[in-house]
């Protein structure tokens, strides 16, 4: 099993009849190594929670195989899979207080009381819920219930920890603090965890690798840096990153020894041919029509370049977000100093070949990233 704690092999989930019902998860395969933290990232309804629940055993696996610690588990009941889970809806036992909720699984293991109390105290301190241990779940706020639910999962001794939106209800400050602590807690103990989230910051901060899902399909499974630098397709390119990547269809032409990108609105950008690596240049000319993507922080204003008209200019306290109409669409720029442009101003825009992501217009698959082919 080459050390993988979890392996999904061509997993499908249908709600309703196999082959006819709603196809929520489509042919997903992935390996998760011991000690990894994986984030399933995607918008609502993308299949991330279905995937998690199939791993836990709450949803039947329609097709494919799930291996957990070397055992095939897709037909086993949850009790035999040895996984812990924190639920999005908290799902605390309403009849017992927070302490007993957290300690529940440990008590079933018949651990001595002192050991149980020590473990509860440790995890409660980490999640800042030491002061509510004696309270009943229905007297708690959403954020407190969520942390209690997270504590109940983390305290267990399991092969795999499944965390469904573990911090969705927390205040921003607390979220930032706990994110760091949670990562440290998981890493220190060598725990393997999969978290489901729609929050990119959370995924980036916590996860070693992020699985981006859309429409039930695993779009890309890579490290946060790789997702940013080498998005596999237009979807991950535009989904990951805030503000999102600017994308424009362009036609590629050669003019007097220069490579010219012509935009829909008539604007064009010309580059010396050697500004592009030879393979990238060849790929561009071979297609003629491509989609280019460029991250907002890589868009530069300059004295030369293609013209655009400023639509909005927002100063966020540490960076400016400027949007401008460009090539029959809108382009967004991020600048780290205050941008002194007013609405209606004409600006000139430059895009460096090193920052360009090129995609195939039909399939949406990446062709090149900067100077390298995808």
């Amino acid at each position, binding site marked *: 099993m080459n050390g993988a704690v979890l392996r999904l092999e061509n997993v499908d989930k249908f709600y309703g009849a196999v082959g006819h019902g709603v196809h929520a998860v489509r042919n997903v395969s992935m390996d998760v190594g011991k000690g990894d933290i994986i984030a399933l990232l995607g918008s609502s309804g993308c299949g991330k929670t279905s995937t998690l629940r199939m791993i*836990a*055993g*709450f949803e039947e696996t329609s097709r494919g195989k799930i291996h957990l610690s070397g055992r095939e588990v897709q037909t086993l*009941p*949850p*009790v035999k*899979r040895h*996984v*812990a*889970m924190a*639920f*999005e*809806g*908290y*799902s*605390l*036992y*309403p*009849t017992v207080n927070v302490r007993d909720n957290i300690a*529940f*699984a440990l008590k*079933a*293991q018949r651990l001595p009381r002192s050991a149980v109390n020590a473990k509860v105290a440790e995890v409660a301190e980490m999640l800042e819920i030491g002061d509510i241990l004696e309270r009943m*779940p*229905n007297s708690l706020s959403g954020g407190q*219930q969520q942390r209690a*639910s997270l504590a*109940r999962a983390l305290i*267990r001794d399991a092969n795999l920890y499944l965390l469904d939106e573990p911090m969705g209800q927390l205040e921003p400050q607390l979220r930032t603090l706990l994110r760091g602590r949670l990562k440290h807690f998981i890493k220190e103990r060598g725990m393997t965890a999969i978290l489901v989230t729609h929050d990119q910051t959370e995924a980036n901060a916590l996860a070693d690798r992020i699985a981006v899902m859309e429409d039930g399909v695993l779009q890309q499974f890579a490290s946060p840096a790789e997702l940013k630098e080498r998005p596999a397709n237009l979807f991950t390119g535009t989904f990951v990153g805030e503000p999102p990547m600017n994308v424009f269809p362009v036609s590629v032409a050669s003019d007097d020894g220069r490579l010219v990108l012509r935009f829909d609105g008539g604007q064009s950008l010309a580059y010396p041919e050697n500004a592009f690596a030879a393979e990238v240049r060849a790929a561009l000319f071979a297609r003629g029509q491509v989609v280019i993507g460029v991250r907002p922080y890589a868009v530069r204003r300059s004295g030369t370049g293609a013209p655009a008209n400023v639509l909005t200019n927002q100063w966020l306290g540490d960076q400016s977000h400027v949007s401008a109409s460009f090539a029959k669409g809108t382009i967004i720029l991020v600048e780290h100093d205050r941008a002194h442009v007013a609405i209606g101003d004409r600006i000139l825009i430059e895009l460096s070949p090193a920052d360009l992501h090129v995609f195939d217009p039909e399939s949406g698959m990446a062709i090149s990233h900067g100077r390298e082919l995808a």
Partner: protein
Amino acid sequence: MDQTSTLEKVLRRVAISLVILFFMFPIFWIVLMSFQTNETILRVPPSIVFEPTLSNYVALITGRLETQAGTLEVNFMSNLWNSLFLSAGSVAVGLILGIPAAYAFGRIKFRGSEDIAFTLLSFRFAPPLLVLLPLTIYFQKIGLADTYFGLIWVYQLIVLPLILWIVRGYFEDIPADIEYAYRIAGHSWFSTFRKVALPLAMPGIAAAGLLAFIFAWNNFIFALVLASADKQPVTVGALAFVTASGIQYGQVAAGIVLSILPTLALALYAQRYLVEGLSLGAVKG
């Protein structure tokens, strides 16, 4: 500051008193009747001033009914016992069968589950007399007529759909994830059902059980047709007070008072669980 004026408060109390009076008067009148003889009950105009007598209760408890035409035997006490046994027995059987079924209908999606659940509910639509005729013939053939077993079985037509549909709703209201959280912590579905679902649905089960008991207790037609004198509940037994020499109103009233007592006691007892269930509240995350 209390916003309601004194006048409003007074009017409100008057209104509540009227409602209570309206609903409680028949019961109050019956209680008064049960301490009177037929002569004082039937005098015109009626009066609430009379000399109380325990003779009605004595007659019921000793089983000897003195009328102008002579002494009659009434087995009211054994009717009361029959009622208790039949109602408690059918509710017990109904709960044993109905709770697991309600859980299955509430939690597990299977082919035709809605149809089956609806079919069970539809037993309540059928007029009892329509069911009774063929049932009587079958029961006589297979020897179930005039047995407690047979009666409790037939009573399932009343109690089972009731329990099934009420308890099912309660199970559906428990978030499935609470059960999943318990199962993933290393428990089988059966222990999850026992330790998580059952306690959380307890208020619903208490309510359904109580309601089913009252329905079973008040049933008349099944027992009238399917049971002979020694198996009859109070509802049927009360017919004995319609005698050749007139209706024994005093005894009827005393019989009603006695037959209300068990259900009243049960309701007061179960109320504790009903209220407890409400204050437990936050089952919904």
